[in-house]
């Protein structure tokens, strides 16, 4: 459980979620999993359910889905999990990553001003709010597809142009990421005005949500790109297991946990108007799988600095052992190659930490010998990417053995407003006219 849900996700002034949360905590104690702590509604219950399965073990969506009249006991637990859309923070940031991702990059039409953007956000927030609860969106032509929220979360971010031209009442400034020497950026994956991160444990629910959001945004914006990604399907591994990337490596071990003292400082913005918001960094990283195939295990482990099997640093035995970058072998050489990925990526100051929330991608590409284009939709969150992310990426661009096999082809950054209160839309206060 690297990044759990905060209780703040529970909307203020809503009695029902409180009941659900209290219930979840009781479950938690019963199953002796109290150490998990600090989790939000759906996830608490979900954790509990793994130990105590039963009709009451699963926190479900609202009773809104009238077609679901089946006995409670037959309700699939994963499908009925919910992540609160409303709250102090937007969902999908500290939320433990769901299995599937679609990241939408939208460009606003030229005529869209702040008033129109406000209307768009009302519609999209309403859709997200309903679908996150397992409730059909307004004017939903496929309401049945909304009935299994499966931990759906929708996260909205806004590019530098929107922050500059449309937002008011905030000290948030946002610059595009600098060019890094190893980047080979393709326009098709570039900076857009708006990003919508949709994550879900079920691909059909996700697709339905995506479609609703696209239908309700098309009066305002065009889709520039759509980045789909995946992690492990739910139930494949114990929850909280660090994901592996398509190159086979355990990826994201050093992520700050929501329980860490500095998590809030590192991830949540304190800029006025953005308190509880964050900044989303998006990098599309292509892996050259054909040549990676030629690298043997010793080469792969040396390249990254971690063991492939356990994910332990080459100086340790367990995944979360702290890497010892000064340890030397009998010839006097560093055990962890100073040019390895972890040696270069590791934080050198307390500032250089951020929350990684990456997804693998694989898309057909018959022009390649492998028949596919694969890599990582690298998504990260930081309160200030200039201080926290850029120095690390600069260092990796200068030197990282992994660069031989990876290339960043897309790069963008988005200001992520705080979560919306009940009945409100994301960014509503920033777009007030």
């Amino acid at each position, binding site marked *: 459980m690297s990044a759990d849900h905060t209780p703040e996700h529970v909307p203020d002034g809503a009695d029902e979620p409180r009941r659900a949360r209290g219930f979840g905590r009781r479950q938690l104690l019963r199953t002796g999993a109290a150490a998990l702590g600090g989790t939000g509604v759906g996830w608490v219950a979900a954790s509990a359910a793994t130990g105590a399965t039963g009709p009451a073990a699963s926190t479900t969506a609202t009773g809104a889905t009238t077609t679901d009249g089946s006995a409670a006991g037959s309700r699939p637990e994963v499908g009925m999990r919910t992540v609160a859309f409303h709250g102090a923070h937007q969902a999908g940031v500290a939320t433990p990553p769901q299995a599937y991702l679609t990241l939408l990059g939208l460009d606003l039409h030229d005529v869209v001003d702040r008033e129109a953007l406000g209307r768009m956000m009302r519609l999209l927030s309403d859709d997200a709010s309903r679908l996150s609860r397992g409730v059909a969106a307004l004017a939903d032509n496929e309401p049945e597809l909304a009935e299994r929220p499966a931990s759906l979360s929708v996260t909205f971010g806004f590019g530098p142009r929107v922050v500059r031209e449309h937002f008011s009442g905030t000290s948030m400034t946002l610059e595009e990421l600098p060019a890094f020497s190893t980047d080979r950026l393709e326009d098709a994956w570039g900076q857009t005005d708006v990003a919508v991160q949709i994550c879900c444990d079920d691909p059909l629910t996700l697709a339905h949500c995506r479609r609703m959001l696209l239908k309700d945004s098309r009066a305002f914006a065009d889709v520039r790109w759509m980045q789909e990604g995946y992690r492990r399907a739910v139930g494949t591994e114990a929850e909280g297991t660090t994901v592996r990337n398509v190159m086979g490596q355990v990826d994201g071990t050093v992520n700050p946990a929501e329980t860490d003292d500095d998590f809030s400082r590192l991830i949540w913005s304190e800029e006025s108007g953005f308190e509880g918001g964050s900044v989303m960094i998006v990098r599309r990283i292509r892996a050259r799988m054909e040549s990676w195939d030629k*690298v043997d295990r010793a080469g792969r482990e*040396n390249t990254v600095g971690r063991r492939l099997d356990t994910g332990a640093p080459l100086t340790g035995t367990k995944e979360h052992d702290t890497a010892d970058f000064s340890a030397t072998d009998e*010839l006097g050489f560093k055990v962890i*190659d100073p040019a390895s990925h972890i040696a270069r990526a590791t934080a050198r100051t307390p500032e250089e930490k951020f929350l990684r929330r990456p997804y693998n991608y694989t898309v057909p590409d018959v022009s390649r010998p492998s028949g596919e284009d694969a890599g990582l939709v690298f998504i990260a969150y930081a309160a200030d990417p200039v201080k926290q992310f850029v120095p690390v990426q600069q260092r990796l661009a200068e030197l990282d053995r992994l660069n031989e096999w990876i290339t960043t082809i897309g790069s963008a950054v988005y200001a992520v407003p705080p979560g919306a209160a009940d009945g409100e839309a994301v960014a509503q206060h920033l777009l007030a006219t």
Partner: protein
Amino acid sequence: MTPAHHLSHPARAGLARTGAAGLLVSLLVSLLVSLLAALLLTVGAAPASAHASLIGTDPEDGASLDALPTSVTFEFSEEMSDPAYVVVTAPDGSEVADGDPVVSDNLVTQALLDGPAGAYTMAYRVVSADGHPVSGQISFTVAAGETASPSASASASTSASASASASPSAPATSAEATTDGATESTPSTEDDGSWLSRNALTVGVPVVLVLLAGGLLLLSRRSSS
């Protein structure tokens, strides 16, 4: 079932055409081919063909030099990626590498500081283009009293300490260095002979076998036609 029967026909027809004499020849050929394959497999397991390996150094392993060179070079069987790491240790245990090694294709060159006479080790850790790490070390000795002479005072002070500890034990150190020369892969340290002369057996035998097999194949063709 039927397709399988159909498929077997051409094979039988081929055998019939070859005849008894031809059969004997083909058996011999296949025997030889098997032998050849086995031999090639054995050769393939040798360190030289596994990954990038050290194919030469300057100075050579075990060399006795009149003076410490200003740089040392490692030559590998394939291109190396940057950065590479080199540690050159003087007889007194001090590190005499000057700055970072320079990687140029399959050569890794390390500039040296001054050092005393005695037994030196030079260790390397490199990463080949396919990401594989290779490391090991070789040794050489620098004769006493004739160290490079950039500064008289420096060489005087260093040679004094060197003659006391390193000089007498130089041969022993050298031997030890060669035995534990490699950690991850055995460096095939260069001796005086050319590559062909050293590999006469591994190269020559297969070549002869291939020729032999080819000849027999030709013979079998003629006898069957």
